[in-house]
């Protein structure tokens, strides 16, 4: 549905803002586009939606460049910046204008206001909306043309936990109906519970992409032993690097069986052996993007989706 192919954007002579980015989003899936601020997420989404011309590469929607879609709002619902709304218009007028532009009845605008929970605030001017309410209005605008795909830049920004859960359910429902979702975020915990696939970008380059489960599996296990030093030595001998977590446990980039066998061979008594959890995606995120920011040619982690 959405195909990003070797997309590159270079401003001036400096390092490219987006460097040879490729990924695809299939119908029925939610893809999280993850990276720290300034990593190139927004620039990529702007090239996808025809707002910024790429230096090279292409972005297509079902094979067509976005600007070549006859009525893009009926194919791709886009929200790139929730605060880019006319402050003096009411929520309802904002939606009705968009409805008449994409050619859906104004009844649909009212339905969408209800869908995003703004029916009570529809007569208020956008000036008086909180950021969370503007996000909801932006989502309503994106949904207006009953599109096949959604492209959302930082949709969770400004939403409270209840709002984030609401958004998650809305996107899951949209994907369950065969829709394609691409959303960007720098908030890891928000993305982890929502997306099926991840594309992680750092310093303009894709540093990891794949299914959520596969990417998480790559982040290793946490292991504890009665004698941590003996275990660490055994792991070193087995050629598996281990990193102390600071609370007596070791973080190992290997699967549980490898660690168990190493411990058995050394006669180390394990007190805990489990998949790294909690901050695992966070660790992945920071290790990947940190490496990308620190070196000119970051290693890429490719996981088959």
């Amino acid at each position: 549905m959405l195909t990003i192919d070797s997309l590159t954007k270079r401003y001036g002579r400096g390092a490219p803002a987006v460097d040879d980015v490729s990924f695809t989003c299939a119908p029925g899936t939610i893809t999280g586009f993850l990276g720290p601020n300034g990593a190139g997420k927004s620039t990529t989404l702007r090239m996808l939606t025809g707002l910024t011309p790429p230096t090279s590469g292409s972005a297509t929607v079902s094979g067509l460049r976005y600007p070549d879609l006859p009525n893009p709002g009926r194919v791709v619902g886009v929200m790139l910046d929730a605060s880019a709304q006319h402050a003096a218009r009411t929520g309802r007028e904002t939606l009705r204008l968009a409805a008449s532009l994409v050619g859906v009845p104004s009844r649909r605008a009212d339905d969408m206001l209800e869908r995003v929970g703004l029916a009570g605030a529809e007569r208020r001017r956008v000036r008086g909306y909180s950021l969370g309410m503007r996000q909801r209005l932006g989502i309503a605008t994106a949904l207006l043309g009953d599109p096949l795909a959604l492209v959302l830049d930082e949709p969770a920004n400004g939403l409270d936990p209840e709002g984030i859960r609401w958004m998650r359910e809305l996107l899951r429902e949209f994907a369950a109906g065969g829709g394609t979702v691409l959303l960007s975020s720098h908030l890891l915990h928000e993305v982890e519970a929502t997306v099926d696939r991840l594309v992680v970008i750092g310093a303009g380059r894709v540093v990891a992409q794949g299914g959520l489960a596969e990417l998480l599996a790559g982040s290793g296990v946490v292991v504890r032993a009665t004698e941590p030093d003996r275990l660490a030595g055994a792991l070193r001998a087995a050629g598996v690097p281990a990193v102390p977590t600071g609370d007596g446990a070791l973080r190992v980039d290997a699967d549980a069986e490898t660690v168990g066998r190493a411990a058995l061979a050394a006669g180390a008594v394990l007190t805990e052996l489990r998949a790294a959890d909690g901050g695992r995606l966070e660790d992945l995120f920071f290790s990947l993007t940190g490496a990308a920011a620190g070196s000119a040619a970051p290693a890429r982690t490719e996981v088959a989706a």
Partner: protein
Amino acid sequence: MTATTPTTTPTTGGGASPALPDVPRISFSRIVSVELRKSLDTRAGALLVAAAVLLTLVPVGWQLTHLTDGVPDFDLWVSSARGGVALFLPVVGILAMTSEWTQRTALTTFTLVPRRGRVLAAKLAAAVLVGAGVMAFVLAVAAAALLVASGLEGTAPVWGDVGSVVGGSLVASALNLLMGAAFGAAIAHSAAAITVFLVAPALWQVAGTALLGDDAQWLDVFQAFGRLSSFELAGHGAQVVTSVLAWVGLPLAFGWVRALRRNVS
């Protein structure tokens, strides 16, 4: 817009892509009607319309109640009715081209209509329609005032050369509005564009004469507008064309091209 060739063949690797909905291209008239609505649906838009009505009615009302020198001809009623509006119409043109950038709604608009040239053309068309509406009101008020005044004084209304009065005022209004739109396009910031529009031509009128002497009329836009709206082009065609190109064509083209390429934020 034509720098890249559109890809019409589906690329591989996109996974199973559902068929695109069979929806026709957004028509130009629909974009114009949305732009028209956008120019009127805010408090500022309503205020501008109210201002136009007041600027028309107040001077005409004053004239109606001070008929000391008899009943003026139609052309005088028209000039008092459109005196204030003449200041207002350029603002309509300016705001048509700037508000999208000032209010940051360009992002939404250009996402829904990625061919920016169509949006810009629609904005210009919508501004011209607003101007036409305002001028229809102005001319109707002038005609009504003439009839009322003649009735009050018991004289026959003097219409004069209605064709050239109406035509001339329409041409003058359209030119002023387009010049405003051109400044709005070039400057893309409401307050700055209005200021420059009010100051720059007046400054040039003084500076130009001092610097160029008689040659300044090659760039005197007000003289050019005056000649165009009074249909007196004989012997001055080239000067009128250069003035209009310099003050309307150039800023409009500059602003247009920039808006097509500009990074929308």
